[in-house]
């Protein structure tokens, strides 16, 4: 299954990671240890594609995750042979292996020092900067990590991945306004990413529910827009419809309680009838998706089982409320 090997490693579950790691020895055996630049030898060796090196990287990560350090070192060696030990990305991977093999905090500190030495020579080394930020976060130094990430974004402000990481860091600290800002920056870079729209909608919903800062109605209106945009960009998007139903339920709930806020100057909430229509559409679509998934329709099996289960529970909860 090549698609599993090519998927970004962090999206894999533990079982899938194990499956990938088990394919590593076979992949290493099938592919030559080094690719020759001479055209004569390339006639006899299997073709080298960009996918090959993505797979090596994913295998390296999977082996590290499952604790298979010897195979991980073999993968790393191939990458070093191909790209050289001074390549930025390869250096970051070498650091990653050291991080994985570190058993206590002092060893991690040593790895961090190495990163800082490299950055002292070249402070625009992107992969190493990212590793340093990730390591700081892993060591629990969240505020230092945020500081480093903000500095990183100063010179590399078109890196959507880094903006998303910043949003996640802020969110872990409960700083919703900052998280929303970082998330919006990421959306400017990748405006077609439907999952980012849904995620921003979720963060806005969380901000509205926490209700410490700003106007919750404001957040809800913005969240409604985000989920609608996500659905507009992707038909049958479970996450988008789920969020839309949650938001519209909340808005309708607030409206029926007569909690209409008076200071409606900055935001425009759609008409109640529109919200009701959106709610009905979301309920219908969620029902469809859950039913087709449960019926094992071969064209509807791409959803995450956990997400479908959550939608099912939420649908049955809300229908009980209606009956009451």
């Amino acid at each position, binding site marked *: 299954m090549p698609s599993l090997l090519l998927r970004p490693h962090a999206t894999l579950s533990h079982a899938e990671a194990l499956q990938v790691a088990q394919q590593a020895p076979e992949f290493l055996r099938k592919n030559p240890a080094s690719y020759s630049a001479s055209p004569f030898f390339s006639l006899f060796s299997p073709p080298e594609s960009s996918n090959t090196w993505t797979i090596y990287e994913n295998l390296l990560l999977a082996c590290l995750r499952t604790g298979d350090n010897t195979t991980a070192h073999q993968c790393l060696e191939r990458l070093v042979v191909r790209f050289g030990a001074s390549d930025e990305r390869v250096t*970051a991977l070498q650091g990653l292996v050291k991080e994985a093999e570190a058993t206590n905090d002092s060893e991690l500190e040593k790895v961090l020092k190495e990163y800082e030495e490299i950055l002292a020579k070249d402070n625009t080394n992107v992969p190493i900067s*990212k590793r340093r930020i990730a390591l700081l976060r892993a060591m629990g130094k969240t505020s230092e990590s945020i500081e480093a990430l903000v500095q990183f974004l100063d010179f590399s402000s078109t890196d959507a991945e880094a903006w998303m990481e910043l949003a996640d860091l802020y969110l872990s600290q409960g700083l919703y306004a900052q998280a929303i800002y970082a998330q919006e920056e990421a959306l400017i870079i990748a405006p077609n990413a439907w999952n980012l729209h849904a995620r921003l909608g979720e963060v806005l919903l969380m901000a509205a529910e926490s209700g410490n800062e700003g106007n919750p109605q404001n957040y809800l209106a913005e969240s409604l827009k985000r989920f609608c945009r996500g659905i507009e960009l992707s038909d049958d998007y479970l996450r988008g419809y789920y969020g839309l139903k949650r938001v519209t339920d909340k808005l309708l709930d607030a409206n029926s309680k007569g909690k209409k806020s008076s200071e409606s100057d900055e935001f425009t909430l759609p008409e109640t009838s529109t919200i009701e229509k959106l709610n009905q559409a979301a309920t219908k679509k969620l029902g469809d998706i859950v039913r087709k998934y449960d019926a094992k329709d071969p064209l509807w099996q791409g959803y995450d089982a956990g997400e479908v289960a959550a939608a099912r529970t939420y649908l049955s909860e809300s229908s009980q409320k209606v009956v009451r």
Partner: protein
Amino acid sequence: MAWLSRPLTVIGLVILAHGCYSAHEHTVLSSTSVQHPTSPSATSLPLDIYIETIAATLLICLGLVLGSGTPEPIQWHTWAGKIEREGDSTSSDADKELRSNPFNALEARSGFINISKLRNDFVKYQQLGK
């Protein structure tokens, strides 16, 4: 309809070859017969060869179009919806293109991966399995 595609294309090619051969034969014959050099019908091709060639070309086109697979969606939301619905479960080895949301990488963030936490989680996962 896919089974029709190959026979149609082959028949079309045969008819096209026949049309070409007829045209060639006709020009050779008309150039050797110099008895009536003034008659225009001797130099221009007969109508049935024209019709044969055009019909054969159309037949080949039809065969090729029927044989091609279903087109991929060109609208963004249809394409994205297809990915969401089907995932990579239906992708066979024949089409190795990536069949998952390309923007998932932004939420996974491989550059910021926390490997020691993943390692510890994996150990716990294995202990649970036993």
